[in-house]
């Protein structure tokens, strides 16, 4: 592995910061250098949030350069579109949580929610995966674990051992959600066997 550049996008409150933290810690635990960058500030609840995670033997820039992204993991459909130009031209991986969150600006009639997202993304890559993560997480017993489930899907594309992922998830989950989160991770991992 030369380097891996992963973008995690979504809406404030979906657990993007925690998910990218687990990803970065798993990379560190696996012996890689890693930098993880996002901006806190005015983009809190309901705003658009993105995290850049760069994994390599030695990482300089904390930001992924436009055209260098390998994987885009999006927790919300319309947010996927916002970052596609960060991806590399040839066969990037796009994983999308099959969930639409309609911003109030649409209800006020000031904007429209994008249509045909699947078709649009299909033109960019054949490695496009829509995951019904919220439904799958609900089945396991905690709707809020959908983000960890999506990390499980992502793990199929990364060279980290499963026991490292599990250790990091355990260390970063509240005690009562530890097992559910591990199950969510496994469910995601098995949902997409590649």
């Amino acid at each position, binding site marked *: 592995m030369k380097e891996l550049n992963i973008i995690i996008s979504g809406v404030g409150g979906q657990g993007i910061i925690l998910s990218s933290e687990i990803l970065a810690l798993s990379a560190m635990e696996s012996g890689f250098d890693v930098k993880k960058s996002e901006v806190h500030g005015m983009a809190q609840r309901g*705003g658009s949030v993105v995290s850049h995670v760069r994994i390599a033997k030695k990482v300089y820039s*904390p930001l992924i350069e436009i055209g260098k992204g390998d994987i885009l993991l999006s927790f919300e459909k319309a947010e996927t579109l916002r970052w596609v130009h960060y991806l590399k031209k040839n066969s990037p991986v796009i994983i999308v949580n099959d969930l639409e969150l309609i911003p109030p600006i649409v209800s006020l009639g000031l904007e429209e929610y994008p249509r045909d997202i699947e078709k649009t993304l299909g033109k960019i890559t054949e490695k496009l995966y829509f995951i019904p993560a919220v439904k799958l997480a609900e089945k396991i017993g905690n709707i809020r674990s959908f983000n960890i489930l999506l990390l499980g899907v992502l793990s199929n594309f990364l060279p980290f051992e499963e026991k490292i992922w599990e250790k990091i998830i355990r260390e970063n989950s509240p005690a009562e959600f530890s097992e559910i989160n591990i199950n969510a991770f496994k469910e995601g991992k098995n949902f997409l066997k590649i």
Partner: protein
Amino acid sequence: MKLLLSGNEAVARGAWEAGVKVACAYPGTPSTEILENLSKYPEINAEWSTNEKVAFEVAYGAAIAGARSIVSMKHVGLNVAADPLFSSAYTGVKGGFVIISCDDPGMHSSQNEQDTRRYAKFAKIPILEPSDAQEAYDFIKLAFEISEKFETPVLFKMTTRISHTKCVVKVAERKEIPIKEYVKNPKQFILLPVNARERHKVLEEKLLKLKEYSSEATFNRIEKGKNGLGIVSSGVAYNYAKEVFKDAWFLKIGMPFPFPEKLFKKFYKKVKKIIVIEENEPFIEEEIKILGYKAEGKKYIPICDELTPDIVRKSIKGKELSHPDPIKTVRRPPQFCPGCPHTGIFYCLSKLKVTVTGDIGCYTLGALPPFNAMDTCICMGASLGNALGFEKARGKDFSKRMVAVIGDSTFLHSGITGLIDITYNKGSIKTIILDNRTTAMTGHQDHPGTGRTAKGEETKEINLKELAKACGIEKVYEVNPYDIKETLKILKNAIESEEPSVIVARAPCALLKESRDYFGKRDKKMVLEDKCLGEKCKACIRVGCPAISIYNGKAFITPLLCVGCELCTQVCPVFAIV
């Protein structure tokens, strides 16, 4: 030991290891987590101060008294603390004293882009500029050594990207540094003109020594390259440049002031062309040009906005890497949280159609749709002075239709002096203090009005109503911002009066535990679809709650988001929300 730390966490860890005893700050993005982390160490006496000037003076006092101390703030906070900053260069310090200023290129959460390096040169104080969290950790430890060796305060420039990026950081353990003996020394610490004249000479001599040191210090270094291109770079820009120019020579600057003249001259001989890659101001570029050397920098690299690796590439090489075309998607501007107490006030203000001078905090979002209820937002505490200025310019008939809006923490930071000015200079301004019992915007820090310190200890709580009275305001009201009818009534009464007044709108931030206690176990609200007037009404949408949207022509409340604040139930004309 290796940890995954943000730049702010790394600074706190490094400062703790360096034996810091006193730490002060006023919260401000992106600097806030530095003091939050410092306050967790039992060996450190950490405080949230009333504002940056006070924070500076407390930490500075501790350094004069012989202890290692640190003060942190965002870049615009240094404007507030500029007065003691300049004096501190003259007196110097005994215990190590480091001033952290976090710049915000790109203005992720600020009103301007200012470059702290300009302050270093202006105030004649050495400055360090790390490129990532590991360097922030390494540099902060050395900053205390420089401070004590040269008896000078040391500035420390962070940026949002460095403060909030997490990196792998190698850490060590704390070293106790005994507090230095205190010896009274009026000639050094009383800046009467007679003493200050001497101190200025001492300062100039110190700067010459620091200039020599800058060329020898590990902060500045030459990195060998393979071609004739010489890149001079600092901060996070260095890391972008390293990605884009893999074969170039680098002069990596970690101490931009005093500039490492000797080291630069050595570097200059090794390369054919110099390009300076730095974020915001052309500070290094100017230092090089002052020495009489040729360099290009801002000719390519923009002054405005945050840099990124793609901007660095495109500015100099002319094009980006190939990538999929950008796709337009729906905007998601930030908004008030569901159940936010500010929502009620801004709903009323937009109804009353008054002129509103605003201030710095979450409530600046009142400027956005659906409220559009703000005319100015300038800097911390400006709402009161600005409002009085409107009145002085346009008369009392105009100011009868206006209010100043300020948060509790911001009012205590720098609104009090504005309020006294209104009384003293016979203004009639109505001030609304949005008292949500915390410094919410920066992530819930305590302040003098909450009754708790940074260490989580109970303390005396400043009473805002009594404080307003002591500032000479006779009409002081308290309202519950969740009660729209009552709030509108009190606001109308106050606004129509010729007398100045203060209205404290008191309810805890909806994200605080106190808010959940406040609401008790209220039910989430839902819409009776057959009653709802839908598209043609939209009264509930004008409350600006993120939980409410129009779905299939009718109002819809997202259960996951609703906290049951009941603001929407009060505005529905047909009582369709239950």
